[in-house]
């Protein structure tokens, strides 16, 4: 086993990987930008190295600085987490060249899957169903127009090197294509330094379902059930679950076997996720393979009873998979809510700032993977994901009930979060019935009922709390007044009230 592992990431995922390292007896090494000196992942690590100023291009995306920190610390391996350099074949190659193990697939596998158009053509050859569209990067808006006419609108523009919804645009009609093409290309250029895009038939109200796979370098590969990731806003996942309410044993087996053939087609090693679109009839199409740990991996861990990060590290160490396909049994149901520093009342605008109060929920069936602590300031430089709240139940309804209970207990003050949004979403009868699609959140936001008027007793209690806080502040204001000893002005007021009685 490795003695030291460097975690080339920040936030909740760095914390989660640090915990896995500790549990395996490995000393975890953190890296941090100047904006993250006081971050939780630095505090929990054994060692920490500064890798540059706040912008991620100069710190968390700097291959050179991260490899330098690895050298300095003597770490034998690097875990990239998700985002940043996690799916960057150049980074994987640089690690290999400098003799550091990257905990993930080889640069070659990454490269083949990273280019979405290449991956699509490769898999079509292997007999995997993909959504109709282009198999080569689009050369111009004219070519896009041509293909779109052939397969029919609506179509989806996607970044060839993309992921996470960046560089994606839905195009409903031909007159929208030029602007969308320009927007998608420039977003892709900024996000991935590659403006190339491709085009796919848009499937209406699909489900987004993905299969977790694990593969070692000795030819063993297994799948660990699916994750239902249909709930998305702006192509960003919002809430994930395992298992999917619509996947039965037969479909799971078919999707799982397809996922394994995808992994085999690129000699995949380590943990990976094969994403599918599932249409209303239960047909599934390969979408892409994420060659890294997913944000939403905890739901699989709770239902399959496997620690995926432990497995990743063991595989990278050259161990054989300790689990066979027949050892994997799914039990119960798990949901994950992504808790963001954002304001749902203002179109989910990011809300960084100081976390004045933080009380995380505890108790049966919960897991909080958090990257923050009370008093810490959420910086403006990075993704506003502050924690993942995961609930397990013996069935989906128990998991939903647990999640609702947890959200009631969760207290984050000082910044806005999407906790209230989740409270409403989990109470939605359509959600509870499991009728999900990628259009769900948009539709839900449309039908989300206005807040009911508060119960008069609650309102009165709130008024009393406000009055108490006001009195408390006044009592603490300059002067010797306290709650029990009246200041002169308070005494004057009292006399006045007593004289004239209470005004109704």
């Amino acid at each position, binding site marked *: 086993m490795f003695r030291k592992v460097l975690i080339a990431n920040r936030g909740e995922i760095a914390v989660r990987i640090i915990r896995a390292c500790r549990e395996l007896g490995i000393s975890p090494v953190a890296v941090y930008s100047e904006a993250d000196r006081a971050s939780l992942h630095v505090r929990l690590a054994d060692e920490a190295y500064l890798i540059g100023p706040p912008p991620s291009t100069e710190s968390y995306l700097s291959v050179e600085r991260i490899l330098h920190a690895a050298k300095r610390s003597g770490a034998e391996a690097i875990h990239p987490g998700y985002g940043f350099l996690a799916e960057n074949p150049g980074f994987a190659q640089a690690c290999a060249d400098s003799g550091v193990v990257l905990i993930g697939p080889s640069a070659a596998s990454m490269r083949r899957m990273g280019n979405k158009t290449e991956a699509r053509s490769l898999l079509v050859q292997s007999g995997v169903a993909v959504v109709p569209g282009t198999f080569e990067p689009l050369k111009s808006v004219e070519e896009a127009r041509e293909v779109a006419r052939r397969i029919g609108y609506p179509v989806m523009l996607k970044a060839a090197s993309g992921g996470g919804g960046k560089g994606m645009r839905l195009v409903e009609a031909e007159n929208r294509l030029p602007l969308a093409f320009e927007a998608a290309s420039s*977003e892709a250029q900024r996000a991935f330094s590659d403006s190339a895009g491709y085009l796919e038939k848009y499937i209406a109200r699909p489900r987004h379902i993905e299969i977790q796979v694990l593969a070692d370098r000795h030819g063993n590969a297994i799948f660990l059930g699916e994750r239902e990731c249909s709930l998305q806003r702006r192509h960003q996942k919002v809430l994930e679950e395992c298992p999917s309410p619509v996947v039965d044993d037969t479909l799971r087996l078919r999707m799982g076997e397809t996922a394994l053939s995808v992994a085999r087609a690129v000699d995949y090693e380590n943990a990976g996720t094969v994403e599918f679109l599932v249409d209303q009839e239960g047909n599934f199409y390969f979408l892409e393979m994420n060659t890294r740990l997913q944000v939403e991996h905890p739901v699989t861990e709770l239902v399959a009873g496997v620690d995926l990060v432990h497995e990743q590290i063991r595989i990278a160490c050259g161990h054989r998979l300790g689990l066979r396909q027949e050892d994997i049994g799914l039990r119960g149901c798990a949901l994950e809510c992504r808790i963001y520093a954002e304001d749902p009342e*203002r*179109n989910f*605008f*990011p*809300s*960084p700032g100081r976390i004045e*109060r933080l009380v995380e929920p505890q108790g049966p069936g919960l897991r909080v993977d958090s990257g923050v602590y009370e008093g810490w300031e959420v910086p*403006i*430089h*990075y*993704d*506003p994901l502050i924690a993942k709240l995961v609930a397990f139940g013996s069935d989906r309804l128990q998991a939903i009930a647990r999640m609702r209970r947890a959200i*009631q207990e969760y207290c984050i*003050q000082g910044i806005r979060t999407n906790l*209230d949004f989740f409270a409403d979403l989990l109470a939605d009868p359509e959600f509870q019935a499991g009728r999900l699609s990628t259009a769900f959140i948009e539709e839900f936001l449309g039908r989300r009922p206005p807040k009911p008027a*508060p*119960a008069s*007793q*609650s*309102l*009165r*209690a*709130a*008024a*009393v*709390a*406000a*009055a*108490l*806080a*006001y*009195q*408390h*502040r*006044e009592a603490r204001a300059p002067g010797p007044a306290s*709650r*029990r000893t*009246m200041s002169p*002005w*308070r005494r004057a*007021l*009292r006399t*006045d*009230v007593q004289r004239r009685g*209470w*005004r*109704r």
Partner: protein
Amino acid sequence: MELEIRYEDQVIPVEIRGGEGKDTVFVFGKEVSCDWVRLPDGRYSILVDGRVFDMTAELSGEACLVTGNAGTFHLRISDPRGLMSQSVAEVAPPGLQRLVAEMPGKVLRVLVKPGDTVAYDQGLLVIEAMKMQNEIRAPKSGVVKEVAVSEGRAVSSGDFLLSLE
């Protein structure tokens, strides 16, 4: 202490009278069976006829944000006895609406110029913050009066962006 607490268009008179070792609370002039305590973490625990209310009350001027197990309430406190110096809210001249940056970011696109007529919800600016592009939309229809930022400029929280009339 005698206060008026406002919630939307409701006015709730609250009086707290100090008694022997325990305050008595009157709401709408009626004594309420109300057991309250300030908890060690700064919240208030209020029991009204056994119902538990566990709340934080954050004051800021005359505004008070109460959050807790009964929900979130944006209240305003007025103190008819004049104990608090009334903070005068900064009000824009009627008809003129000033938009300010909600948080630090970078202006990517300016979609309008002074004199443009804009419809409600029309995009005005695109600002990148926390890795997201966010479109600032018109809060009402009107005419763009002033644009204070240009493309590529960094803005801080509270910076004036543009005004609509």
